[in-house]
């Protein structure tokens, strides 16, 4: 075949697959060969190809996701990222070839690792993968024994034997059905959580409050929260932002330098979290820390908005590794002078310790930092987290 004119149309997966299959069966075999069981089950060549097709579909989806991530020139709201990831995972569940929970988990994990290998700093991806894993377990164990008791260790389980063996061997079909259902539920929850958070705005913000908010222009959640607050309450809002950012019409924009001075006027500080860790510390847009410190000094309460998919069940070994720095916001004429000599610091995020935060406003509830761990139980399974 003539390599020079190999045309592979990426967008239409099916066409692509067909054209590929013409001369790529060997490849298919190889890929399916990864999991021996599937080889045995897929007895006839037709099935093998069929599975190969599915496998390629998954790869396709993954590549699509990664391309879109790569194509972006600025960081998009993590909601979009979350939905994209979830859709991809749904695809995995749908087209993936597995006969039992273990295989499914393995498959999810494999894909998850590739994703987070590509973007180690996008913790939301990890969260969602783990979330789906947990759902998979649930949907499996629902199959087995009616109620699904918390998998987390606690004192009164120390003498219970983990009954792993009675969980395997449920039919993949049912798992798939239930799991897809569950994933769709999550989807819905994700879509609604912005409203839920903004709904809490009415209760958390009081009359004549003076709010200091950060990175209003980038966080849709924050803006909707404020909208919710403003609905029936009269508030003044200082929005901390860099001069280049577009400023919100009904918020007085101030620069980060002025925050410490302004803090004495404020009654509440509201940030939008990027990731929340089990101990109640969180990653927030850079500059958040100095705001929190100022607030702490004036004992102004600090609320952090975080949708449930931003709550991470794990700790990162090195927070600096997940904090990306972006383009130095300087004229390029300086580049050749500075490159290699000066490091221009442009962190996107910043780690805020738990003791500076008053309350986390999640879509389900508003909780103290020290109680974040409770939520983790609802969304993640320890075994998944452990071997991630």
């Amino acid at each position: 075949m003539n390599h020079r004119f190999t045309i592979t149309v990426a967008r239409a997966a099916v066409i692509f697959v067909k054209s590929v299959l013409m001369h790529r069966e060997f490849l298919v075999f190889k890929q399916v060969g990864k999991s021996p069981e599937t080889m045995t089950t897929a007895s006839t060549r037709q099935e093998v190809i069929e599975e190969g097709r599915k496998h390629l579909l998954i790869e396709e989806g993954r590549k699509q996701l990664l391309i879109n991530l790569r194509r972006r020139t600025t960081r998009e709201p993590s909601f979009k990222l979350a939905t994209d990831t979830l859709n991809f995972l749904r695809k995995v569940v749908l087209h993936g070839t597995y006969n039992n929970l273990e295989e499914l988990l393995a498959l999810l994990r494999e894909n998850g690792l590739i994703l987070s290998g590509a973007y180690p700093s996008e913790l939301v991806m990890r969260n969602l993968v783990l979330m789906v894993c947990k759902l998979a377990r649930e949907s499996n164990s629902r199959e087995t024994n009616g109620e699904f008791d918390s998998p987390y260790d606690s004192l009164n389980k120390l003498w219970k034997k983990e009954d792993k063996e009675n969980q395997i061997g449920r039919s993949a079909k049912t798992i798939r059905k239930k799991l897809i259902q569950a994933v769709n539920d999550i989807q819905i929850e994700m879509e609604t959580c912005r409203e839920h958070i903004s709904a809490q705005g009415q209760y958390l913000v009081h009359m004549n409050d003076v709010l200091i908010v950060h990175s209003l222009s980038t966080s849709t959640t924050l803006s909707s929260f404020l909208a919710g607050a403003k609905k029936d309450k009269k508030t003044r809002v200082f929005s901390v932002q860099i001069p280049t950012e577009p400023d919100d019409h009904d918020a007085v924009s101030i620069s980060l330098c002025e925050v410490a001075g302004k803090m004495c006027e404020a009654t509440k500080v509201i940030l939008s979290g990027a990731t929340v860790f089990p101990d109640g510390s969180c990653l927030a847009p850079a500059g958040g820390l100095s705001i929190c410190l100022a607030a702490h000094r004036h004992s102004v309460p600090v609320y952090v908005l975080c949708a449930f998919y931003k709550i991470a069940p794990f700790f990162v070994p090195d927070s600096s590794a997940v904090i990306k720095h972006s383009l130095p916001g300087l004229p390029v004429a300086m580049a050749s002078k500075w490159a290699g000599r000066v490091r221009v610091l442009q962190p996107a995020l910043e780690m805020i310790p738990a003791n500076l935060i008053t309350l986390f406003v999640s879509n389900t509830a508003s909780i103290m930092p020290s109680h974040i761990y409770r939520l983790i139980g609802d969304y993640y399974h320890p075994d998944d987290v452990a071997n991630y």
Partner: protein
Amino acid sequence: MPPKGTIARDSIQKKEDDNTLTAVIVADHYETRFAPFLSNQGPWCLHRVCNVPIIDFTIDWILRTEINKIILLVSEKNLDYLKPTEVRWRTFFEQFLLISCRDPASIGDALRELDLRAIISSDFLLITNPATFTNATLRRQVENFRARRKANRNNVMTLIYSRSSHPEKATIGVKKADGKLVLYHRADNPSRFDVDKNYFLDDVVIRNNVTDTGIAICSVNVLVQFSTNFDFRGRDDAIREILANEEILLLNIHVDVLNESECATQINDYKSYLTASALLMDRWLYPLCPDNMFQPDEYVFVSNGQNMYYGVEKEKIGSLAGTQSKAILGSCSMVGASCKIEQAVKVVGSVVGDGTTIGLGTRIRNCIIGRNCRIGRGCLLENAIIGDSVTIPNGYQLEKYAILSSNLRMPADPLNRSVAGYALCTFAPDEDDEGLDFDRVDGGFYLWKLSSGYSMWSKEVKLGNGAEDVFSHADSVDENVLTDEESSPETAEAEPVAVFQEEIFDSMTRILELSFTPQLMNNLILEINSSKLANNISMEDVAKYAFKTFILLNACKTFIGFKELALKWKGLFTNYYKPQKSQVQMLMAIEERFGAQNEDFNKALPNMVHFLYTETGLGILEAPAILEWHESLDASSPIRTLMKRIIDWLKEESEEEDDDDE
């Protein structure tokens, strides 16, 4: 701040109308400088910057533009190297073609091949240098181009320039009104060039504060240009052609400049190689930066958030443990996967390839080190390029601007001769790629160099006797180029004749050092011609100054030395001093040299002339020339007296001839 306008979304769905752009990348690099690294590891575009194949970077930024068709022009011998790349990227684009050209000698050939196959019907983005990086989405530029095309089909080309100040800056003349290119000058040294007055009549801005990004948006007509005239080697030829006979072709070229926040750079030599990797690692090209470049099967990097990058071992990819940054001091650097770095190693502004080991307390600054090298303890490496699996002994202090190709084992004791600006290899360059010379160095190494006399390291630097100070000079030069943006080209201009003279002096002295071969003579002539063109010197001046410099050579202090050398270099004289004018010039040169108080020369003068005249001698001077010259001498000058004998004798001779005629 990131470049405005996220091209991503609307570029996904394909445009209906057929003005979709195609990116045409010439995968091979025709820069002889890089030869030391290409011989054994594929085409230049697979060479690694920041441990990532150059081509991947290039394609990655194209991914961020609206383009979704890519054509890679690659020479047949490199075709197989690029297969993996194709597989890797194919699915990201609507169309991804590898086109192999039968051993192209230049970019021109490749493009001709492309035109021959008639694959491209629509406009295309021409990238002649695979190592061309930018973080611009080019949206505005493309829109402008299309608008111009709509307005006038003959607006065939848009050259894209960036504001980033680069040592070698283009100097271009652009019409204020529509950004039409009227003056194009891109020599290696844009310090001086001629501008006709009429350029300034219709208001034209001459700017040298912009840099050519090497990216151009072209219509098919440009390809036609290439296929019509077969002598075109590069893009510049086409541009010059179009500009030169504008009224015949009626084609226009325009210029578009990227905005303040959009950075662009390309790699032409090792200096820019280092610069580019620094720019990438310091995120000036964000989102085009190493930790956004990943191929789960190939390479994955994590950064410590800032500008230290670590390769991730396969088994760790994706796991949280993989993000754990390593205990290495340094900044703006990258350390490949599975490297063994001992304690107290300092790495600054450098790239270290996968699997390399670095010994205790070694310091590395502005280096690019290949894969699987072993570098000893307490070494000091600065401004050097080091190939794969090179071994450097403990406590070695590598010379600056050294280029070590792959598989070298450096001897414990330093080399007896400077390698700055040369490339040290284990093998000789193959004969067929011209423009490369080499010396053998003890330890069985080959020291490559460019026969043009320029440094291997950098385009701007011409190797003199002491390479280092030349470099330091060069650096300082482009420093102040950077600092004063608005410096007009004239300020930098030097007296052309003087420049010319010292240039040929350099070449002569250098050739003197070498063992003489006729080939060398040709090179010398070539160089003289080139510098003639560069400084546009009239033929007379060439004759004059060539000889003047010749007699200034140390070898020519004494008459004997002069004699020998003159005989040896006969080729030179026969080349230049055929016409009588030139001969007169030669004598003038002698005359000028005469005044100076060096007795032996003055004494030797008549003999010299005689020597140059007689058949036994060089026999390139002819009687009329000498006589003419003699006439021109003023009566008082001592030369007359000195020359008297010869002149009379000549006169007699000529008279005799006259008699014979009768």
